[in-house]
Every structure is written in structure tokens, then in C-alpha cells.
């Protein structure tokens, strides 16, 4: 079995794995030091194959790319710490109020429609608890995350806990999940996975936001990943 898994390093470095096997191998890769080294080397080898067929792009592409970069915000590894400005509290309070309304409605709908799915209810209850914890902390902030496409996401947090409120999230194929990350320095720590209901979700983050610089959300294979592997679909700073 393990020899079988290691063999996937070849097709993986060539991007020749179908999506499900790619996810499978990436979970193995996260824990397999020799495979990580091999993938690094085989990717560097593949890059030479690519480099060997270089071809000048149309001349006008340069200006377009440089202009587009000029108008594109870069990700920041060390996000600026936000200082509490007077306007923030009101924003935060209205956001929390919105969270409570949506959470309450969400709970009602879920309870009526999915009585047999206790797990989902528990998740909702946990989310509500997280909202309550955030409220009790008194010192709440909220941040609208930068998202991909039409998705909207906001995080409300106190030093002790954080809640994500998201809508218009695209449906995920297979058993893929959205996974949340709390980022300290450059290290993302897993903060829970979820699947949205009708594109919406209210989720309590696992772990304390205190000391985290940023929050991010990625798409991950079923069950989530120990470290981010998928594309970032939402992110934003968390000044605590």
C-alpha cells in the first residue's frame, strides 16, 4: 500500500492525477517527508521540461500584465494590525445582530427540515454558542473578508472566539469541504471545516483568534487537511 502511494509522486509532479487521487495523495504528502522531498525535486525537473519549450508571448502582453498587477492588491504575509477606531464598534454590533438573526433563522430551518441529521444541528448549536461567546467577550470586531467570485464572508471575533458568516458560497463537488484557518505569522492552523447549506454558513472557528494575524478559507478534500492545499476562497486580517 505505501509503495503504491509513493508512486503517485510521479503523476502528482506532472499534474496527472485526477482530482480525487490528487486530494488523497496530498493528505499523504502532508505527513511524508521523503515524498515531500521527492515532489520538490520532480517538480523542479518538470519545470525544466517546461522551460525547454519557451516561446515569446505577444509583445503587448507585457503592458497588460504589468498594468493589471498595478491594479491588483497583493496578499500580505504579515497583515497590518488594525487599531480600534470609533466606527468599528457600531459596525461590529450591527454585524453581530445580523449574525444572531441569521443564526436563529438558520437553526429553525435546519431543525424543521433535517431532524434526523443531528450532526448538523450540533454544528449550528456550536455556532450559536460561539456567537454567544463572542458577544459575552464584549470586545468584538468584525471584518469583511476578501472573497473570490460572488461569495461574501464576514468574521466576527473577540480574543477568545470567532464566527464566520458566509453566503453565496459555491457548491462543492463530492465530499469536499470548506476549511477555515487561523494564521499566525505565516503558519496556518486548522480552524474547522464545514459544508454550506444553500450557499450559506455560520460557523464557530476552532481555536482562539488571540494572536492570529489573519483568517483564511480554502477548499479541501473530504475531512479537511492538516495544512492548506486548495485555493484560498476568502481571507482577511484579524487584528487582535
Amino acid at each position: 500500500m505505501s509503495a503504491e502511494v509513493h508512486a503517485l509522486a510521479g503523476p502528482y509532479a506532472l499534474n496527472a492525477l485526477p482530482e480525487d487521487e490528487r486530494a488523497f495523495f496530498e493528505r499523504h504528502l502532508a505527513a511524508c517527508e521523503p515524498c515531500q522531498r521527492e515532489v520538490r525535486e520532480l517538480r523542479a525537473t518538470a519545470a525544466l521540461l517546461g522551460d525547454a519549450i519557451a516561446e515569446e508571448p505577444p509583445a503587448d502582453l507585457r503592458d497588460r500584465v504589468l498594468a493589471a498587477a498595478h491594479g491588483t492588491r497583493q496578499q500580505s504575509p504579515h497583515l497590518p494590525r488594525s487599531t480600534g477606531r470609533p466606527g468599528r464598534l457600531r459596525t461590529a454590533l450591527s454585524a453581530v445582530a445580523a449574525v444572531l438573526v441569521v443564526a436563529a433563522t438558520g437553526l429553525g430551518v435546519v431543525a424543521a427540515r433535517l431532524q434526523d441529521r443531528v450532526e448538523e444541528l450540533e454544528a449550528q448549536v456550536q455556532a450559536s454558542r460561539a456567537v454567544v461567546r463572542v458577544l459575552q467577550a464584549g470586545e468584538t470586531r468584525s471584518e469583511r473578508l476578501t472573497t473570490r467570485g460572488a461569495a461574501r464572508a464576514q468574521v466576527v471575533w473577540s480574543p477568545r472566539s470567532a464566527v464566520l458568516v458566509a453566503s453565496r458560497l459555491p457548491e462543492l463537488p463530492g465530499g469536499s469541504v470548506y476549511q477555515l484557518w487561523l494564521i499566525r505569522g505565516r503558519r496556518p492552523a486548522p480552524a474547522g471545516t464545514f459544508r454550506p447549506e444553500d450557499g450559506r454558513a455560520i460557523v464557530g472557528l476552532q481555536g482562539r483568534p488571540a494572536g492570529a494575524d489573519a483568517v483564511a478559507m480554502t477548499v479541501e478534500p473530504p475531512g479537511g487537511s492538516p495544512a492548506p492545499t486548495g485555493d484560498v476562497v476568502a481571507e482577511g486580517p484579524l487584528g487582535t
Partner: protein
Amino acid sequence: MTGGENRPRADHPLRSVAGGGPTETPSEDELLAGVARGEPDAFAALYDRLAASVYGLVRRVVRDPAQSEEVTQEVLLEVWRTAPRFDASRGSAVTWVMTMAHRRAVDRVRSEQSARDRTERAGAREGAAEHDVVAEEVEVRLEHEHVRRALASLTDLQREAVELAYYGGRTYREVAELLDAPLGTVKTRMRDGLIRLRDALGVGR
């Protein structure tokens, strides 16, 4: 370099720089570090260094020139956007950019393929014939003699598997079907083929 009797250019600002030797040229890794700091000049220089490599690879996989240009632009913008999170301990700047370029190119053709395959069954394509086309085109374009030689040192199956996957953007399952070879064999040949290339090209040593 040292002559210039006709036109003394001692006062030319580039003069002293040119005399400074080859260390004046920053590496791609250094340029990417500049990009990570948000320096437009570093990004322009990195573009000049890597755009042809990215475009050549994307063009090979995607084929359509307009789409290739689009994907190339996406890749280079992604480089700009995510450079601050580039982790140098996980590989070189060039590998990072080329890996991203290949992934994007493959994503593009696979999403197109799935749409196309639903309507037209791929019966028209003969595996060996497709590999011949891929190999022929690549052969014409391979500019780097050492890469050409390294590829020639592989067994037929290793070379076909690696080329169909990398230059053809195929999954190993498709490659197995095209070459009429067992899945397990194809996976293994991709790996040992790449390992042989790695050693022939002196990567990571």
C-alpha cells in the same frame, strides 16, 4: 567591452555597472523577493525573465493562442498577488512559477475536455498517433539540448508517459488508455522516468 577608443564613455552611468561583473544580475529568487515586497520593477524584470517560459508551456498544453495568452496573464498575476506568501524553503522561484503555470494550463484543458468529451467520444484518436504528434511538436520546439538528450535517455514508455502527461496535459488514466498500458505501470513509469530525468539534469543535487 574594454575598447571604446572611438567614443570614450567613461562618464556613462552604465559603464561602471557593466564593469562590475556578472553578480549585478539578480536571480529569479531575488527578483521574486522584490515582487513580494511589492516592487513593480522587480515584477517587470521577473516578467522579462519568465514570461516566455510560462507562455511556451501554457501554449503547448492549451494550444489555442488566445486562451494561452489569457492563462499566461492569469498565472503571472497570480505570481504578483501571492508572491508575499512564497515559501523559498519549498523550492525555487522558477519551479514555483512553472508549477503554477502547468496547473493552470491543465485546469483549463480539463474543464474544456470534460465538456467536449460528453458530446464527442474520443474514439477518433489513436493513442500512439497522439503521442507521435505530441513528441514531434515537442522535438521541434525543444531548444535545450541537454533536456532533449535527457529525454532521449528514457525508455519509450517512460518518455511517452512523461510527455503525454506534461506536454499533453493528460491524466495518468488517459495516458494508460492512450498507450494501452496498465494503470500501475504508467504511474510507475512517470515516476521512474522523472527520476531518471532528474538525475540526468542534475536537479536537487
